[in-house]
């Protein structure tokens, strides 16, 4: 019942935002919206909601709870940054953006807590609609193109995923669609049907998780959407894709095709890492650059799932801390745009002189995203590498190391260029909003602290998720 009340309140708040007659009402509605999120959090942690089922379609399990907490944190930052980022927009554009942001946050919550494969799918489809609206926010030909591609490819992908879900349900069980029932029945399912179903689901969900093969729409979406929204798209939405895939992975864990599923995930992960590594060198836009970094990191997470064992733990850990780091970098990029009015890699420079704290945020973010200690990603990547070697997969370890070297070189070269190379354009830097740079840096510092010391509840949640 709680979750339905939550959905109702969120929808009402989003509707109030959509019809708001001033920016102050939009901000007030935002306050109400995040108060509702706080109430759900209080229900989870103070009222004994965590670990319980909520109706027949939802459950407040460890995975859902962890990703919900992360998403609300990022969404709150995104909301605050968007207020400044969109201050020159007209009221209709302004309120539509925030209403869509609230709807996206609500749909993501639905994906995280869904305990039924069909319900997960419905909410993922819902995220497509909200995200398409955010991508089209600027109403230009480019954003329209990106929104069209996103809507079209995601819909095609999600239709394929639905075919996979139908097949999975038919092959595994007749009637029940909860993950638990599916997992129990998958053990005796027809292996070939299960394999076909997994391929279709993986293909469909890849557009959300930003991994091979449908990663391109995510890149275009992050590029076209306003930077603060990109922070949510490349973390909250990507996590939704990851979690949806993780649940199918857990369903198939007891089936005879699990070994094959893991091989497929390793292959998809390596291909994603390869694409990320190569395109990090090629692109000339900082937002696309960060998006390719997301593809690379999600590829690493897929490899972790593919390796299995401690690799699953590392994959979840990696995704959790990638959320902090990538959202922080995208929020820093929002400040960069305020300064330069663009994201062109070959022309921007001198950021250290123009906005020292923003530049420090980007440099610290570079260290974190490259998984240099004390970045928490160091721990996850090291664990994945160790598991790879423990499994005698030398070829995989070598490929991983080579691709990670390319990633390190590309990221260092390009983000350092922003901070130190002379500005090669006749741009007229305006004053940067240092408060926003500080706030984005706070997210990053939280990640670095957690890299050294993880709070017990966090490790408990990650351990529980990794147990499948």
């Amino acid at each position: 019942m709680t979750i339905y009340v939550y959905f109702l309140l969120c929808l009402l708040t989003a509707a109030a935002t959509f019809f708001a007659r001033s920016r102050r009402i939009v901000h007030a509605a935002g306050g109400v919206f995040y108060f509702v999120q706080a109430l759900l959090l209080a229900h989870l942690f103070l009222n004994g909601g965590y670990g319980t089922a909520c109706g027949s379609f939802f459950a407040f399990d460890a995975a859902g709870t962890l990703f919900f907490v992360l998403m609300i944190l990022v969404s709150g930052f995104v909301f605050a940054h968007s207020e400044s980022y969109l201050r020159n927009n007209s009221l209709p554009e302004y309120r539509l953006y925030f209403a869509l942001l609230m709807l996206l946050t609500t749909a993501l919550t639905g994906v995280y807590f869904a305990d039924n494969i069909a319900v997960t799918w419905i909410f993922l489809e819902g995220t497509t609609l909200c995200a398409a609206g955010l991508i089209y926010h600027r109403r230009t030909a480019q954003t329209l193109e990106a929104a069209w591609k996103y809507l079209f490819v995601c819909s095609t992908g999600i239709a394929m995923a639905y075919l996979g879900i139908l097949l999975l349900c038919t092959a595994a069980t007749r009637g029940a669609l909860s993950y638990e029932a599916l997992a129990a029945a998958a053990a005796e399912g027809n292996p070939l049907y299960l394999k076909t179903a997994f391929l279709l689901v993986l293909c469909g969900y890849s557009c959300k998780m930003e991994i091979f093969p449908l990663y391109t729409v995510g890149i275009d979406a992050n590029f076209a959407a306003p930077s603060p929204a990109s922070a949510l798209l490349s973390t909250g939405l990507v996590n939704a894709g990851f979690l949806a895939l993780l649940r199918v992975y857990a369903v198939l864990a007891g089936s005879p095709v699990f070994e094959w599923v893991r091989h497929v995930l390793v292959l998809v992960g390596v291909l994603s890492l390869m694409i990320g590594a190569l395109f990090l060198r090629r692109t000339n836009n900082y937002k696309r650059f960060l998006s390719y970094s997301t593809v690379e990191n999600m590829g690493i997470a897929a490899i972790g799932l593919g390796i299995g064992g401690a690799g699953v733990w590392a994959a979840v850990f990696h995704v959790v801390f990638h959320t902090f780091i990538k959202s922080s970098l995208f929020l820093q990029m929002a400040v960069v745009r305020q300064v330069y009015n663009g994201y062109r890699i070959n022309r921007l420079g001198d950021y250290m002189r123009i906005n020292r704290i923003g530049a420090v945020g980007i440099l610290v973010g570079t260290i974190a995203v490259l998984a240099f200690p004390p970045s928490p990603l160091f721990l996850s990547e090291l664990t994945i590498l160790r598991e790879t070697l423990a499994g005698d997969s030398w070829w995989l370890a070598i490929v991983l190391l080579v691709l990670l070297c390319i990633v390190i070189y590309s990221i260092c070269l390009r983000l350092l260029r922003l901070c130190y190379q002379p500005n090669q354009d006749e741009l007229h830097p305006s004053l940067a909003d240092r408060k926003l740079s500080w706030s984005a840096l706070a997210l990053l510092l939280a990640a670095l602290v957690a890299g050294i010391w993880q709070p017990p509840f966090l490790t408990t949640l990650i351990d529980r998720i990794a147990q499948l």
Partner: protein
Amino acid sequence: MILSLVILYVVTLVYLAITERFRNYASIVCLQGLLLFAIAILRLHAIDTIELLFIGMETLLFKAIVVPAILFAVIRHTKINRVPRPGSSQFNSLVLSIAALAASISIAWYIADPTVDMVFFGVALYALLSGLILIVLRARLFSHMVGFLVIENGVFLFSTAIGIEMPFLINIAILLDILISVLMLGVFFTKIDRKLHADDADTLSHVKD
């Protein structure tokens, strides 16, 4: 009876591969909608009457009337009625479509399992591949849209195969139809035409590295 309708449905998919006129595309989508309506009614007659009525109404209304009507409206509005590219010849398209049909039959035959209706699964797979072929080979956005509708119809067909046990899944397929078809066709397509003044997929190549 159902088998004859499914075979007719397969024929529409083959025809889709060789036709180049948009009016034919829209007519095929309409015909597929009618076929799916008949299949759904015949196949699901055992389920709850209200549920059957809802599924039948939705299939008839959206798949056979509203979506084709929007497609015809787009054709009238854009005044473009043909796939223009010589590169995507009918012959190549037909060969690929036949190969997809052969692959679908082979896969369905090879993994024959009593729990899954082999015919429905094979045809759904063929619809999926036909839609993807249409999206990849044709340059016009209109063809891409039809490709997506073909995939969606294939998914709906397969959902009717297991709908007796799980009518909930058919309702979800319906949700997909209503949300996406109407949104993509009605809103985005008209906006694309207004903003970019073209229907060619090549015009949508500004967002890239």
